[in-house]
């Protein structure tokens, strides 16, 4: 069976510090991978998605970047965090082919202070 791992669960970072969130998927190959952000009490904002190694599409221009160095690894980064980067970050995956819903990770609660 497939599993998705996301870490860390919580993170408190000062403004201006770098960020690296990691997501890995096990039990499948060539997944589509996604990074979402959810502000408190708000909806799901798609940040990046990837259909393959090195292939990243950005939905919202901002202070963040994403990379996919390996087939089942997706990394969300920032060089300098802003207060507005605070939120709940979710990684998700789905099969490359077929209409399967996304499976989300457990999320990272990021607080920028």
């Amino acid at each position, binding site marked *: 069976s497939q599993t998705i791992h*996301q870490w860390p669960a919580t993170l408190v970072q000062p403004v201006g510090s770098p960020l690296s969130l990691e997501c890995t998927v096990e039990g499948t190959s060539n997944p*589509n991978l*996604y990074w979402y952000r959810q502000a408190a*009490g*708000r*909806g*799901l904002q*798609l940040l990046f*998605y990837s259909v393959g190694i090195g292939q990243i599409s950005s939905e919202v221009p901002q202070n963040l970047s994403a990379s996919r160095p390996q087939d089942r690894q997706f990394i969300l980064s920032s060089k300098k965090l802003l207060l507005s980067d605070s939120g709940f970050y*979710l990684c*998700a995956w789905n099969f490359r*082919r077929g*209409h399967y*819903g*996304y*499976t*989300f*990770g*457990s*999320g990272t*609660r990021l607080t920028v202070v």
Partner: protein
Amino acid sequence: QQQVKQSPQSLIVQKGGIPIINCAYENTAFDYFPWYQQFPGKGPALLIAIRPDVSEKKEGRFTISFNKSAKQFSLHIMDSQPGDSATYFCAACPPLGRLYFGRGTQLTVWP
């Protein structure tokens, strides 16, 4: 532009009531319509999904009603329980495309 419009934003019902959450879409290419349930501090989890070739799908106390001509679909929760209190998201996607999510509905079921 919001591809999937969801209402209401919040909903409060008594235990045993039948909350109904509605979603509407415009893109006729959408052919997969899932609902997700999210508890506080957790990632959303797939609850139930439907394709446009059927008008209703039921799984336990959860039912999706789908109206292709009106481009609308809804989630009904029968005999709602306090444990159903969560945020619910509808979504839609075209073939081989990505999901477009509604803005979410925060459901509270009072005992």
